[in-house]
């Protein structure tokens, strides 16, 4: 009787050991698989980073929108430096703007067209753009380019076109 019990106990012990060994082996295999998955995940992240940063390498001038509209809005209005309109006008409107600023873009698109048409075109007021670069490092080269365009009598064309295309060209 006792011998039989001993045999059963040994059998159960052996089965338990085999089961534990099987579980450990399976677990080891799965952890290896997870390591491969982690590597794959890091590769995917690297690809996403490359694709994402590749898209910001610069705009395509072919994608510029509203060029004709800006040209038409400003046609026939004198420009000197960053001043649009009659330099001797009674009213001078100074804009301190950042070309990357979304609120400035809204002002440029929603408020300025009427001001230009109703007050600047007739010589009653002029507009003077001043760089106030606060948004980020890209604001400075953008502002410098506006000043350079101003030297060529196209400062306001640059500013208005830049605002109209802000956030669009690189997408």
């Amino acid at each position, binding site marked *: 009787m006792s011998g039989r019990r001993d045999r059963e106990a040994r059998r159960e012990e052996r089965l338990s050991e085999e089961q534990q060994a099987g579980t450990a082996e399976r677990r080891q295999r*799965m952890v290896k698989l*997870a390591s491969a998955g982690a590597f794959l*995940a890091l590769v995917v992240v690297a690809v996403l980073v490359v694709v994402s940063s590749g*898209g910001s390498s610069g705009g395509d001038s072919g994608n510029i929108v509203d060029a004709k509209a800006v040209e038409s809005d400003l046609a026939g209005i004198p420009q000197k430096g960053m001043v649009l309109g009659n330099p001797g006008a009674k009213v001078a409107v100074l804009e301190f703007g950042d070309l990357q600023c*979304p609120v400035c873009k809204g002002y440029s698109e929603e408020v300025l067209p009427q001001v230009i048409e109703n007050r600047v075109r007739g010589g009653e007021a002029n507009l003077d753009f001043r760089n106030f670069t606060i948004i980020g490092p890209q604001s400075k080269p953008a502002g410098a380019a506006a000043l350079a365009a101003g030297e060529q009598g196209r400062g306001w064309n640059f500013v208005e076109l830049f605002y109209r295309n802000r956030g669009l060209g690189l997408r």
Partner: protein
Amino acid sequence: MKAPAEGTLRGIGTFLASFGIGVATYIAIADSGGGSPVCIAGGHGCQTVAESSYSHLAGVNIAIFGIAGYVVLLVCALLRGDAFRMTAFVVSLIGFGYSLYLTYLELFTIDAVCQWCVASAVLMTLLFVSNAVRMLAYVGTEP
């Protein structure tokens, strides 16, 4: 240190992924309407980030990828088994890695912080931690 019960980790995963779906869906809806998410704390950080070129990947708003990721994580949290433990770990690692990159961009390239993006990054970090613990503690423990 003993890992929490798998049921607890799955519950945490379910809660976080559901919350993440809400955040990413809000960002995606705000973008699809031609606008941007509204920063509850004020400021223009959300608008600046949403209008930056980094908010889209191959022309698709990254919030859409976020929704897809959170949905996969939610399904993995609701189901048992090694396949779901592994998938949750890999997907949350991708989400965590990309969130780190996006947070870096916000701080050092775009120079604007969007609280919705930060919320998503925090959720993804917590999901990665809970799924890593789930995977390490319970993978291969059941036939």
